[in-house]
């Protein structure tokens, strides 16, 4: 990271301060909570899945700018996508969304939302889907 302004660029701060898809969904198909004990970042994600696609998604959480902005961006990205598409998401996709490179410590913050999403899908497929 060459400068701190690059890390905390406009769009990241914008997503942090005005998170998209913030909130909860009462009748979600699956919801799941992940927690990073090292820094206390938290994300809870709610997914409505219809015809194997994400019909709606919301999240709520607390933590650093990177963890919350990445969750906000990710929820925007996945709306309408199929479950199979979601399974293919990688760390690189998240970094692309954020548009920055990160140190290993901060990478954990950025990837918390992806972990939450992947585990939500695992739970959905294993326990909920009939």
């Amino acid at each position: 990271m060459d400068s701190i302004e690059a890390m905390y660029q406009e769009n990241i701060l914008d997503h942090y301060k005005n998170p998209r898809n913030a909130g909860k969904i009462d009748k979600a198909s699956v919801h799941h909570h992940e927690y990073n004990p090292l820094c206390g970042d938290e994300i809870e994600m709610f997914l409505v899945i219809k015809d194997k696609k994400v019909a709606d998604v919301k999240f709520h959480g607390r933590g650093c700018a990177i963890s919350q902005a990445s969750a906000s961006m990710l929820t925007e990205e996945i709306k309408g996508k199929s479950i199979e598409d979601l399974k293919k998401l990688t760390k690189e996709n998240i970094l692309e969304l954020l548009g920055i490179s990160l140190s290993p410590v901060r990478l954990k913050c950025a990837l918390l939302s992806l972990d939450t999403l992947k585990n939500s899908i695992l739970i959905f497929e294993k326990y909920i889907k009939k």
Partner: protein
Amino acid sequence: MELNATFKMPSTKPLMDVEQIRKNFPILQRKVHNKPLVYFDNAATSQKPKQVIEAIGFYYKNYNANIHRSIHELGEEATEKYEEAHKKTADFINADSYQNIVFTKNTTESLNLLAYSLTAKLKKNDEIVVSQMEHHSNFVPWQQLAKQRGLRLKFIEIDKDGNLDKNSIKKNITKKTKIVSLTHISNVLGTINPVEKIAKIAHENGALMVVDGAQAAPHMPVDVKKLDADFYAFSGHKMLGPTGIGVLYGKKELLEEMQPFLYGGEMIREVRFDDTKFNDLPWKFEAGTMNIAEAIGLSAAIDYLNKIGMDNVQKHDRELVEYAMGQLKGIDGIKIYGPDERDAVISFNLGNIHAHDVAQVLDSEGVAIRAGHHCCMPLMSVLGVAATARASFYLYNTEKEIDVFVNALNKVNRVFA
């Protein structure tokens, strides 16, 4: 042969010449992101003066050998220096003798040794008392041993200022208490606990007093006799010494009756097929080949601190923290945790900005602080936060560095405005 590399010590006693001291720390010349390094993560580990770095190099270059068992010149020189390190450590905390000083690898190991050895003799439902502000290393060992051995773990609560609550001290330390284990200085709040008073209460109730001195030994004169601590644990790496060397002080009669924690070579006197006689103190607790170079490094660190004088170190650190508290109070949205009267540690949060983001922006200005739970998750839950940012100072830090820090905090506020 003179075994110590000789260096000019800062000849400034009784007043500290910080600029002179800074010259002894090679790392302080370093730039971080093109800015001069401002190292404010001393509660995690301190930097090392060249006297310490060189003493370790000198040992490896000139008299590296195993101790206690070698009948040759190098072995004798190494043994002498290793034993001298015990003696210097004893003097540093006003213990009677080298026999009171057990070397370990860090505070954590010292406390684990106690948790295992001291709880072995306790009975079901006997009580151990710690406080809400303990580091995980003075908490998890007691918690786990209590679970294994059916003991009860109790907590002294903290009041809203971050001091131990007086009523809670009285309520928790009772005739049922067998061990009280308490931090001397909190690594999060900077609170300086009244260990001497609490030791008295513990003893009146027939309990042992264990003190976690990891944050105190580096920053203030420690007198284990005046405190009347039964055990006192600390780490070399937080007091200018290398990593890998920790100290456990114990009263002689207590150490004598305790079962060793680690078994093996060196700690024995005589081994037969059916039984073993253990070595004299302190060697009965030092099993296997020990951290010889690190003990010699610790010795050099103690020499360094003694030449400056722990009174001076304490005065400098307390003045810095007072200056910093004054400067920080002017920053928008800052919340500082802990009491006004404190040692050189300041935990804080800036508005709703996460501590990670604060640390990251400060890093870009060359300022190294810590962000997280500081190995005190129970305390974080009492404070009602997930994390704090923490700046901690030491003898080579200056008011000018605090000004850089304050400017950097204002920058954090601008970035997140």
